[in-house]
């Protein structure tokens, strides 16, 4: 009895907050499939998705390298300041994306400390570089956060063994450390990519949101809704494409997670 009560509470909650709304959006998109499809395949929507993928393709490798190095510094090194590093890495998780965006606007704006870039004709704000910077900021912690516990768990016995057998630091990393944390890295990369694709608040502030130029896929959804004039199929359609990408991410997560836990 108690078992069924708990089960129906949990499933009922998920139905109200997650499954029901999601099913309804799919239903509404199917209701005007032609309108949705036209919006998805329109020139500026395709450009928006291209920009999102382009920015993701830049931000993910940067944050992967950073995350692995950061994890190594936090767990393995005795450098002073690694506690601060540990705290700083998590900041983007707790900080509002709008604050991230505003920080970049203040830093790279005309009167900002880095305003000189603009004086020399290098557009950062309201252009692709700012979108990349904002995306890198918000997706910074994910690889590091997956790598840190795994590094702690595997310990450094094998690394020390490799060292005593004459391996260099570089060899130890490539032959011992990286293979044993690889699934944690992959899992972190999946989470990073999901965050990059889905970023909205920070990009909204720094991008300028120019159709076909600095408009990412999530901004496109926002635009499609705000200028819907009663016809919401375009917004639902583009949103559904992003939701499909999220489902791919979920599939990747469920495939990778057991492997990560097995290491």
């Amino acid at each position, binding site marked *: 009895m108690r*078992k069924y009560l*708990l089960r129906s*509470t*949990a499933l009922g*909650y*998920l139905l109200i*907050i*997650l*499954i*029901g*709304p999601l099913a*309804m*959006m799919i239903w509404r998109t199917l209701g005007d499939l032609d309108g949705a499809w036209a919006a998805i395949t329109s020139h500026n929507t395709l450009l928006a998705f291209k920009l999102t993928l382009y920015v993701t393709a830049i931000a993910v490798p940067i944050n992967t390298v*950073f995350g692995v190095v*950061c994890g190594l*510094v936090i767990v393995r090194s005795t450098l002073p300041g690694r506690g601060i*590093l540990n*705290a*700083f890495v998590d*900041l983007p998780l*707790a*900080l*509002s994306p*709008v*604050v*991230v965006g*505003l*920080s*970049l*606007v*203040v*830093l790279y704006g005309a009167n*900002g*400390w*880095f305003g000189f870039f603009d004086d020399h004709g290098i557009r950062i704000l309201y252009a692709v570089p700012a979108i990349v910077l904002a995306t*890198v*900021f918000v997706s910074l912690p994910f690889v590091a956060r997956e790598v840190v516990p795994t590094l702690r768990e595997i310990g450094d016995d094998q690394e020390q063994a490799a060292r005593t057998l004459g391996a260099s630091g570089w060899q130890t990393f490539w032959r011992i450390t990286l293979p044993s944390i690889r699934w944690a890295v992959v899992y972190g990369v999946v*989470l990073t990519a999901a965050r990059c694709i*889905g970023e*909205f*608040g920070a990009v*909204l*502030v720094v991008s300028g949101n120019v159709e076909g130029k600095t408009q990412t*896929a*999530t901004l496109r*959804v*926002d635009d499609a*809704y*705000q200028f819907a004039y009663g016809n919401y199929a375009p*917004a*639902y359609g583009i*949103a559904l494409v*992003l*939701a499909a990408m*999220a*489902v791919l991410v*979920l*599939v990747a*997560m*469920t495939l990778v997670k057991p492997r990560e836990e097995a290491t």
Partner: protein
Amino acid sequence: MITFLSVVVALPIAALIWFSAGNGFDAFWTVASSPQAVAALKLSLVMSALAALTNAVLGTITAWVLVRDDFRGKSAVNALIDLPFALPTIVAGLVLIALYGVQTPLRLDLGFVHFQATITFSRWAIYFALLFVTLPFVVRTVQPVLMELDTELEEAARSLGAGEFTVFRRVVLPNILPGILSGLTMAFARAVGEVGSVILITGNLPYKTEVASTFILQRIDGDPHGAAAVSVVLLTISFAVLLTVGAFRRYATRHERA
């Protein structure tokens, strides 16, 4: 490494603090304590606390069901829990509008009683949006602890005559409490800064549904100092939350480190 972190994270934040302090502390305080800013901040904090607490209770129940219960489709439900992490927040807002918007199919008209499950432009919209985006936090911090928890302890308590509630309160809860608390705090932090999911569904009505993040968004062009002041308040909250979570984690792992 440090250079990268400084350029990407530390410098923008330093610039923001510098900018907000530019006109002196009094000027900062005047804009940060303006009635509309205070209303937005208060609303963010209250709704985030409500959403985080709701998800602490329902998230713990969900984690329990996923670990101890067994039913068809459980693994699918388990995978679905992560969807709010994977789904862009703007899509989350739109998904809620699809079911709970003006055109909601959830309506009941009995002539004398008329009910319609429309939550847009009300504070319910903020609550639902925040529930959606913070759903996975507590589930994902409690679930691994429950998995490792030995059921023998609970059986021992039961054989000694403890009722179900006592078993939960005295045996299970002390073990999962650090997980609940750190999940709750991260959910709270996430909710306080949330933008994408609330921006479309709430309508941003000042004093009614305008939260801190949308207040900042509205002000960036016309009143950058006001926007910066509220941003610094949010930044302070973020740091406080991170310190709290760190403390919970240290408390949870106190036996392992000793």
